[in-house]
């Protein structure tokens, strides 16, 4: 990159002009700024997300347009690479063009200057000395040497002597280093990029796999053998298992890269700070390789990768590795019977369940042994506590719709009472809505389930409705059988509606079926009747006596009713309670091979050295023109610097006073 040439372009051949254009400063700066602007795209648009997300975000039309432009992986898009390549070519041409001149500048002392031009220079001084020509020249050359300048004497016309001196020629090396560094870094980066993969894909040698397949089903055309090419991929290995492949993410799919060794994971650990924040993630690995006499053990952690045979193995993430879970399925409605059923399953397992008439697929997604979350009862969100183990699963109906659930193993305390927590949501985009199931005195759900079973016991409900109806109508002077029948039926229906859809359904009924005129009067009466019925059913349970009922029991009733009231939105016929687990973790390893890394680092070193030479080692030149005057020896001192003019001013001013004093009986000429 340099100043444009002064020669008229018309006299040059086309190739020469192209060469000059490519190496021109204008093109270089345009490319620098274009690259800067183009780079913004990938930071604003999140890269390499699942393509389905992009379709949702942009709609099918713009999704296609953006895909054609390669915006989802913009830094490997052809046009982006082209800009980079152009920058590299432009820089290379610039270096080639200026290399001869720069090396010349670096070493050559300028000996062909004229006396006239020295006098005309911005930094110029004159004085006279009584010593003879050669003595002055020699002592000045010595002084220049002391100042760190390299110098040479040349004899000019009329026996004048010119001393040409220079210091800081390495400044020009700064130019060469910085510009060569850019080329070196980009070329090194190319080795480690996915360009070779793109090329192979373009030639049709490989095909990106987008399906979710097990390793052995992945076709050969999506597999990459061990080779010298660079790659960066990841693999999740459960504790006790091993892997000799790694997945390379490419756009919306992946490729399978074979490793020349096998990585076994012994153990994965997370340590925590006292406040619950994670302190370290570590994996104990064993490397199995025929080249090793014995398997090699190593522990890796974040910031402490293992480098083995040119492969760097990093601790990148972690997940569940298929934990074994024991569950009790508590029936929430009559479809699923009344007794809990035990289930043995593990994370990532899908199994078909038959609950009552409904067949559902239970898909275990995740298990977490601890959940350190902000305490909802404290104001400060940094107040965290451990909510214990939980697991996440989906229930998929036969029509394919699925709801996601998140259940906690241990009851959670709220306002002094305990509840089993279960979150539910319809799509991953929503946040969980929580069901609070009240825990009874024994710490189980038995009482809750007994009560909800009673609500579905038609004979019992009917009996209680009957006695309540009789009490209500006892004050009437004579029996009205029509009214009795209607009230009895209303009470029973209220309970049925409540069981079916909670308070919401009862309110809907009031809104839609009662005459407008009477609604305001009747609505509270209906809700009052429902509450009375719910209480009476509760008092029919063993151990609950309306006379001696405790506050805790009433609160339990309230929680139970609230909870049953929301069950219709919960959507699952059962509540899955975790009773036991065996935690198996999986460590997420990132494995990278970067054959160009050292080239890039070498380029970086060049760049740093170059930048500092360029800015902080000014190239200074001094000349002294010494000639025999009529009586004395005349001396002209001149100097120039390519950087830091201010410092050079001071330097030159010092020298123009110091040097005359050192060249014997000198007298400085006025006006210099």
């Amino acid at each position: 990159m340099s100043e444009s040439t002064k020669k008229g372009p018309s006299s040059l051949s086309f190739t020469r002009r192209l060469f000059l254009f490519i190496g021109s400063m204008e093109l270089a700066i345009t490319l620098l700024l274009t690259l800067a602007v183009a780079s913004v795209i990938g930071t604003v648009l999140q890269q390499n997300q699942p393509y389905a997300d992009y379709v949702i975000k942009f709609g099918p039309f713009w999704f296609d347009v953006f895909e054609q432009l390669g915006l989802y992986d913009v830094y490997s898009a052809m046009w982006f690479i082209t800009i980079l390549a152009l920058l590299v070519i432009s820089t290379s041409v610039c270096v080639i063009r200026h290399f001869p001149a720069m090396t010349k500048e670096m070493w050559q002392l300028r000996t062909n200057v004229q006396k006239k031009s020295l006098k005309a220079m911005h930094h110029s001084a004159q004085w006279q000395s009584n010593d003879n020509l050669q003595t002055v020249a020699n002592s000045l050359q010595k002084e220049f040497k002391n100042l760190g300048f390299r110098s040479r004497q040349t004899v000019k016309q009329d026996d004048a002597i010119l001393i040409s001196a220079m210091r800081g020629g390495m400044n020009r090396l700064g130019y060469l280093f910085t510009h060569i560094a850019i080329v070196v870094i980009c070329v090194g980066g190319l080795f480690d990029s996915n360009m070779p993969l793109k090329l192979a894909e373009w030639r049709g040698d490989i095909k990106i796999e987008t399906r979710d397949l097990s390793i052995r089903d992945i076709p050969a055309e999506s597999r990459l053998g061990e080779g010298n090419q660079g790659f960066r991929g990841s693999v999740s290995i459960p504790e006790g298992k091993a892997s000799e492949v790694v997945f390379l993410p490419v756009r919306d799919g992946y490729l399978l890269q074979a490793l020349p060794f096998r990585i076994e994971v012994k153990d994965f650990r997370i340590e925590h700070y006292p406040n619950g924040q994670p302190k370290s993630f570590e994996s104990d690995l064993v490397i199995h390789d025929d080249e090793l006499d014995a398997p090699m053990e190593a522990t890796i952690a974040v910031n402490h990768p293992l480098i083995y045979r040119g492969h760097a193995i990093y601790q990148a993430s972690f997940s569940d590795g298929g934990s074994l879970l024991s569950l009790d399925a508590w029936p929430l409605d009559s479809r699923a019977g009344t007794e809990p059923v035990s289930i043995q399953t593990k994370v990532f397992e899908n199994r078909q369940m038959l609950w009552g008439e409904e067949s559902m697929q239970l898909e275990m997604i995740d298990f977490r042994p601890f959940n350190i979350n902000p305490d909802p009862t404290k104001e400060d969100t940094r107040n965290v506590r451990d909510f214990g183990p939980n697991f996440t699963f989906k229930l998929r109906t036969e029509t394919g719709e699925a709801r996601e659930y998140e259940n906690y193993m241990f009851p959670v305390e709220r306002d002094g009472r305990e509840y089993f927590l279960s979150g539910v949501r319809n799509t991953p985009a929503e946040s969980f809505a929580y069901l609070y199931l009240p825990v009874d005195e024994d710490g189980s759900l038995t009482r809750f389930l007994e009560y909800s079973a009673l609500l579905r016991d038609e004979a019992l409900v009917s009996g209680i409705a009957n006695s309540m109806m009789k009490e209500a109508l006892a004050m009437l002077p004579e029996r009205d059988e029509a009214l009795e029948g209607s009230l009895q039926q209303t009470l029973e229906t209220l309970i049925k509606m409540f069981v079916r859809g909670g308070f919401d359904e009862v309110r809907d009924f009031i809104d839609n079926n009662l005459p407008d005129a009477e609604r305001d009067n009747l609505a509270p009466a209906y809700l009052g009747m429902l509450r009375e019925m719910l209480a009476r059913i509760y008092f029919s349970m063993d151990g609950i006596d309306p006379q001696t009922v405790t506050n805790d029991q009433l609160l339990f009733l309230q929680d139970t009713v609230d909870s049953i009231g929301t069950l219709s939105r919960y959507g699952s016929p059962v509540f899955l309670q975790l009773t036991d687990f065996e935690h198996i973790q999986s460590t997420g390893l990132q494995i990278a091979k970067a054959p160009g890394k050292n080239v890039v680092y070498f380029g970086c070193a060049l760049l740093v050295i170059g930048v500092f030479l360029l800015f902080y080692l000014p190239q200074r030149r001094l000349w002294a023109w010494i000639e025999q005057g009529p009586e004395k020896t005349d001396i002209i001192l001149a100097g120039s610097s390519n950087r830091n003019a201010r410092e050079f001013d001071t330097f030159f001013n010092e020298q123009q006073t110091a040097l005359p004093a050192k060249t014997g009986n000198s007298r400085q000429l006025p006006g210099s």
Partner: protein
Amino acid sequence: MTTNTEIMTKPAAHTWWWYSLLLLATIGILTIYHEVLDVYEVSILIFTAVSMALVGNQWPGFRGHSIAVAVLSLMALQLYGSELGAAETNGLLKYMLASQSAIMWMSVFFIAATFTYFGGLIFRSAYTEKVGSAFTWIATTFGMTGLMVRWRETHMMGADIGYIPVSNLYEVFILFAVVTALLYLFYERRYQVRSLGGFVLLVISAAVIFQLWYAFERNAHEIQPLVPALQSYWMKIHVPANFIGYGAFAMAAMIGIAYLLVSWRAAKNPDSGVVKAMPPLMMMDDLMYKSIALGFAFFTVATILGALWAAEAWGGYWSWDPKETWALIVWLNYAAWLHMRMTKGWNGVPMAWWAIVGLFVTLFAFLGVNMFLSGLHSYGSL
């Protein structure tokens, strides 16, 4: 100012005591902490001592500042003992030396210095401007002491918690204020101009006000342990190098503003007071170039250090992560600026505007990325 002649002559007296002091301090630290320092940390310590030796050799103010920070920090450590609670019971800690108090004093003096510098400029009072310099020195000393004491405080929080306090947005804002002030003070002495002080202090005050809001509103000053990705010696060099870059870019932009103001006034009335009170345009242009060159050199180093760290922590030296990419954008922008200036000979008004635009690009790389974009480098999120 060191010129080549000085290098050739006998070293000055101060050189000897300054070098010996640093040598003693380094040996002292190595003796006390040799068990917990690894080879990288020892290298960083020695590198720091050598850098301080070179800078201090040319700059008496820096020597005084370093000694004041050392004395104040050691006093705070002495008063603390091993009891973090001493910050509440000991008066000197509570009102001056505990990191929070020191940082509060820093804030007060930076803001006072801004007003003082501008006061000196408006009323043409050289003395007032000198007071501005003094305030800036005091603020810088308090800021640096605050960081040093906070470093100790992190270690007192728990056995494995301690870290160098440049790990989150709150801490780096203090670092930014201190580094920018030091860079400014260096050039203030070198060019013997105080009239730019108010302009540079303006950006520092903005950082200070943000930092105060962040502490009061979000309790950001509370010490939180480090996430595993930040537990590395790289943080000790990557972050400070970056902030020398940011500080220098910020200073260049503020000088750019001063430049535009003066050139605008000069065009209307070459004899106006502002034009006379401010440094010549040439000098401001030169200073702007010097700052950007310095910033560029350190930003280059910082980005490369970041890449080396990324290779260890994220599995690759370059991932096109938003933070990395924006660092590249900043770098490309200033690379273009420097090319225009050094080979095309552009200067003056357009370059001043460009330096100001550069600050916004830098600001986005520093703050915007953390606020608006997601990525690996999410340590400094608001």
